[in-house]
């Protein structure tokens, strides 16, 4: 019998994917009866709502800040409310003549946040920049130096307050959460117990309660004459609250690291902290990026709850702006749509950024 020689068939390029709009429509929207039905139902829904919406929001809308005109028969959306009240909505009760200060402070803060997201800025000087920007932020907002008048923290409000609360509480809650997550897996029973009790306790209470306690009950326990600013107390409250949730998300990632990784690190002589820092956390955090971003976004929106302790951040400032003014009170909906847009802008940016981070940290997994 003759032996066959093995001949490798040369690799050929894959056939070009079928193109064209028609093909796309057929496969994506009308692939099967159910898909076709869904497409038609959604199309019908769009057709029945969209014209009305456009008519209300654009065609019949009133753009000028004219309350009389807004109230006229047959008027659509009254975007004039935004034109009239935007300073109050975005900056809250901050003294009107001094409002350049929160604007500058917020712009700096936003620039800092954007810089922190860029890979080429991940250098030691970024930490220094954070301290600098926060110092400038507080100085500008609080004043009382260099000819700036003093503005107490309870007058701070609107977007600057929302940004300040969420940035600081996320920045402080994250390291705390790391510690708690590691603590819950500690071999020392005391540490484990403390961390577990903390997480369970905090998760068992609504944020509103935490804020109430921080704002009203905490001062009762303080020694006479010693007061801590309500803003700081609320900040601490949100931080402690957020850290408990974040800790559990991180712990989920820690659980997912195979035992073998720890054993390999141990046999290489790496100590506990070296193992966590170099082996466990990079992998664990990479896995929980979506969950963490969930937390970050939730914190950002949860800051709206500080209204109940009379700090008027974005949502609170809107209420403040419209409730007190009988002329404009009727157009709350438009106001809410306006801040919805602001919230959405931030949250959407965060979620897009999280996708990018996921891509970055998963490079090792790509084939």
């Amino acid at each position, binding site marked *: 019998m003759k032996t066959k020689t093995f001949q490798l068939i040369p690799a050929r390029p894959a056939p070009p994917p079928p193109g064209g709009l028609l093909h796309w429509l057929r496969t994506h929207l009308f692939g099967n009866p159910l898909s076709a039905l869904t497409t038609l139902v959604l199309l019908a829904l769009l057709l029945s709502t969209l014209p009305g919406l456009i008519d209300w929001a654009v065609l019949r809308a009133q753009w000028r800040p004219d309350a009389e005109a807004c109230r006229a028969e047959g008027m659509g959306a009254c975007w004039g409310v935004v034109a009239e009240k935007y300073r109050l909505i975005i900056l809250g009760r901050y003294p009107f003549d001094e409002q350049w200060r929160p604007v500058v402070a917020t712009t700096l803060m936003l620039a800092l946040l954007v810089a922190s997201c860029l890979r080429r800025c991940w250098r030691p000087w970024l930490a220094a920049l954070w301290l600098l920007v926060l110092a400038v932020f507080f100085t500008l907002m609080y004043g009382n130096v260099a000819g700036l008048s003093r503005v107490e923290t309870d007058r701070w409000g609107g977007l600057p307050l929302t940004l300040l609360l969420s940035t600081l509480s996320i920045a402080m809650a994250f390291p705390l959460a790391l510690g708690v997550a590691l603590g819950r897996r500690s071999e020392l029973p005391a540490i484990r117990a403390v961390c577990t009790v903390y997480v369970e306790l905090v998760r068992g209470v609504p944020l509103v309660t935490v804020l109430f306690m921080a704002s009203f009950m905490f001062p009762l326990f303080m020694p006479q004459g010693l007061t801590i600013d309500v803003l700081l107390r609320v900040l601490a409250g949100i931080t402690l609250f957020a850290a408990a949730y974040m800790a559990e998300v991180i712990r989920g990632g820690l659980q997912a690291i195979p035992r073998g990784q720890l054993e390999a690190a141990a046999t290489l002589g790496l100590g506990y902290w070296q193992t966590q820092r170099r082996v466990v956390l990079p992998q664990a955090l990479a896995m929980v990026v979506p969950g963490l971003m969930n937390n970050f976004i939730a914190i950002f929106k949860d800051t709206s709850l500080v209204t109940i302790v009379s700090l008027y951040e974005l949502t609170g400032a809107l209420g403040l702006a419209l409730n007190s003014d009988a002329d404009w009170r009727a157009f709350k909906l438009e106001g809410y749509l306006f801040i919805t847009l602001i919230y959405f802008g931030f949250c959407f940016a965060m979620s897009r950024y999280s996708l990018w981070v996921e891509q970055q940290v998963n490079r*090792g997994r790509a084939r």
Partner: protein
Amino acid sequence: MSEPIITFEQVNKWYGPSFHVLRDIDLTVARGERIVICGPSGSGKSTLIRCINRLEEHQQGRLIVDGDELGDDLKTIHAVRQKVGMVFQQFNLFPHLTVLENLTLAPVQVGRLSQQEAVERAMQQLERVRIAEQAHKYPLQLSGGQQQRVAIARALCLTPKIMLFDEPTSALDPEMIKEVLDVMTELANQGITMLCVTHEMGFARAVADRVVFMDQGQIVEENTPHEFFSHPQSERSRDFLSKILGH
């Protein structure tokens, strides 16, 4: 004979209250000796070698590694781990680090080498396992055999006196077993002390100074490979050999 590098004296270990996984283990390993440990699954082979670098702790008896008696003292454990390298069945490379970073991590963090020294040493070891061209890839981009060779190189970067292999070829495709065994054989010929849990009897025959056969937590037989394969002393060893060599 010079002082042994590893000594087990009446070592006992239990998992939980009743599972007696190592029973009265007595074993001495001479410097430079190459030992293959075999036996049915669940016989305690892996547990035995994992005691040597304290991945498992023994509850009774004495275990002395290169002059250090293993106990609860963390310093001793750390000192022993510096001298003992280990290769696992599942490779256990760090997937978020490149091959080179896997190799330099411990020398820089633990061995206090400069980054440059660590990289030089890592490249030498990668040459040794013939995989230097993959230094900048991530582990999951490599084949199983390549990953295991990287794992061997990683252990060697800490210049251990003893190498432990825990079924290093069991998770590999048949075609890749040879490339790993070749590397291990070369290593064996360079005088490092080796303890290897494996079912590769060809490797045992070619490389081992001694074969240790275990069953149910006990050492049943210690013998030269030649004697072990041609004249096994116990009924149990004969039975085991007939099962793994019979097909």
